[in-house]
């Protein structure tokens, strides 16, 4: 019988904090600015410049630490991590090694009905590096330092996960916690949340861990799942062939669905950490911790309970709605405007989720104004448009964030309530479909459906099917 292997996974998750300014200087952190516009002597490592710590970074980091059940390190300091790379203008990164802001936490995940704790080893604050863009034209790299100095926390888990499903559950849990705190938007595609996967395999029952590799460049949950599967197979194959797994950093290529080694073992990483002399220690008092705790916004579990109680939303729906803070915000705002929480929930649960799935998008990517969804609910409730037109209009809202009232007006999509006009159309439909009419009159009730369908088609969906039904029965 073939040997059984177990996958052992630990994660290093980087989260870009939602501060307005960088961690050590007053440059903007806004995403997407023209290259190097958000730079100054501090974040480009000019000699003689000095970093000054952004207080909000410490408070966000504390909030995340507390929400993940960590102990806050009340005497905390920064260290220098030395390495050379063009995206790192100082030739060192200011990070934390010896006294990171938070330690010994956990989050609880649930996979296939099984609850499990994933322990957090530590969480530290550090600065992000610049961005390298490869220039195809002259085969060089272009460096943009806008991201240099953007605050990050790195959350390091224990090797407690055993499958891709557990990894995804852990990441989703972390993301929800951080988003609810307002500490980051956690968009994998934009890189505001990044995960490095440390993975090893061992025979089931073995006491020792196998040699692990670290996998980088994973920018979607799907890529993470594929990379875990690919790396597990690669390592098992090596072991079965009697070869050694080499401890190394590998880069995942999601298009090729394979990875390659990034740094060879000869170029061993020796970061020569030492205490950062340009920054003074941080002393965190009990009072400060309490203050951050008191300011903690409503957590997901609290919101979920409130939705059930306040809006009478079922458990399952409340789970989907609150799974993303962004979705929950849209729900609450739209429900407040139109006063129909159940209808709003329905649009989010059914059509929105369908469109997200079809477009390979995440709830974070929803880009329409809650006002427009609320307006759509009002239009359908008032009977101004029927349900099939509403669906069509919603797709427009989802894609282009249009104002549904103006759109319906412009495209003449209002339901025709004019009895005379409907009768005209019905007369024609009856005349054009003698067979269906005969069938209906002969007792085949189903034939009526075909006539209703024909009428809707003729009226380009603008009629109310219930009204057509009634009118047809009268006429026949």
């Amino acid at each position: 019988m073939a040997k059984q292997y177990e996958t052992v996974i630990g994660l290093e998750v980087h989260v870009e904090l939602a501060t307005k300014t960088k961690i050590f200087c007053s440059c903007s952190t806004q995403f997407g600015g023209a290259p190097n516009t958000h730079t100054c002597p501090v974040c480009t490592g000019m000699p003689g410049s000095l970093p000054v710590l952004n207080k909000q970074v410490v408070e966000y980091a504390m909030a995340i630490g507390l929400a993940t059940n960590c102990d806050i390190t009340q005497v905390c300091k920064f260290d220098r991590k030395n390495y050379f790379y063009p995206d790192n203008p100082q030739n060192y990164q200011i990070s934390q090694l010896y006294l990171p802001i938070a330690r010994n936490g956990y989050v609880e995940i649930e996979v296939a009905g099984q609850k499990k704790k994933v322990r957090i080893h530590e969480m530290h604050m550090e600065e992000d590096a610049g961005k390298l863009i490869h220039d195809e034209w002259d085969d060089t790299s272009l460096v943009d330092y806008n991201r240099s100095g953007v605050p990050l926390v790195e959350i390091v888990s224990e090797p407690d996960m055993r499958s891709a499903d557990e990894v995804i559950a852990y990441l989703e849990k972390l993301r929800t916690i951080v988003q609810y705190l307002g500490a980051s938007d956690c968009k994998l595609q934009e890189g505001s949340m990044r995960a490095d996967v440390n993975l090893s395999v061992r025979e089931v029952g073995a006491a020792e861990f196998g040699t692990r590799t670290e996998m980088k460049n994973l920018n979607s949950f799907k890529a993470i799942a594929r990379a875990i599967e690919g790396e597990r197979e690669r390592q098992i194959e090596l072991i079965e062939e009697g070869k050694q797994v080499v401890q190394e950093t590998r880069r995942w290529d999601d298009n090729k669905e394979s990875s390659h080694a990034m740094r060879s073992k000869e170029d061993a990483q020796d970061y020569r950490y030492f205490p950062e002399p340009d920054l003074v220690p941080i002393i965190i008092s009990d009072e400060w911790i309490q203050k951050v705790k008191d300011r903690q916004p409503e957590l997901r579990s609290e919101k979920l309970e409130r939705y059930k109680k306040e809006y009478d939303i079922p458990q399952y729906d409340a789970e989907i709605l609150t799974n993303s803070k962004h979705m929950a915000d849209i729900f609450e705002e739209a429900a407040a405007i139109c006063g129909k929480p159940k209808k709003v929930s329905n649009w989010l649960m059914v059509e929105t989720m369908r469109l997200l799935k079809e477009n390979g998008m995440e709830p974070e990517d929803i880009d329409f104004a809650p006002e427009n969804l609320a307006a759509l609910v009002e239009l359908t409730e008032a009977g101004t448009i029927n349900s099939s037109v509403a669906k069509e209009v919603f797709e427009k809202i989802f894609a282009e964030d249009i104002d549904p009232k103006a759109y319906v007006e412009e495209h003449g999509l209002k339901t025709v309530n004019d009895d005379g006009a409907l009768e005209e159309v019905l007369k024609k439909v009856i005349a054009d479909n003698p067979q269906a009419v005969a069938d209906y009159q002969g007792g085949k009730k189903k034939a009526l459906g075909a006539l209703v369908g024909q009428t809707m088609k003729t009226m380009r969906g603008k009629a109310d099917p219930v009204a057509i039904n009634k009118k047809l029965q009268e006429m026949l």
Partner: protein
Amino acid sequence: MANQITDETIEYVGILAKLELSDAEKEEAKKDMEKMLDYIDTLNELDTDGVEPMSHVFPVHNVFREDVVTNGDGSADTLANAPLAKDQSFKVPKTIG
């Protein structure tokens, strides 16, 4: 001199610091490093039991900045330091992340 620095160590430190040293420079560097380590040994003779490790020279802590953007577009000054630039970015030899 009590401390001996090997050729391998000098080679390794050179790689870490991205320095290319001539043989003569390597010998010089070896001597310098040996002297430094000897000095550290002198410090090690002191009894430091019960002394808090010091992470910073000044008895100061919690120096913070409020989270307010005060820096504007710094690209002109930043790029003035670029030996080569293109598309408002530093142009460097091809580097793959």
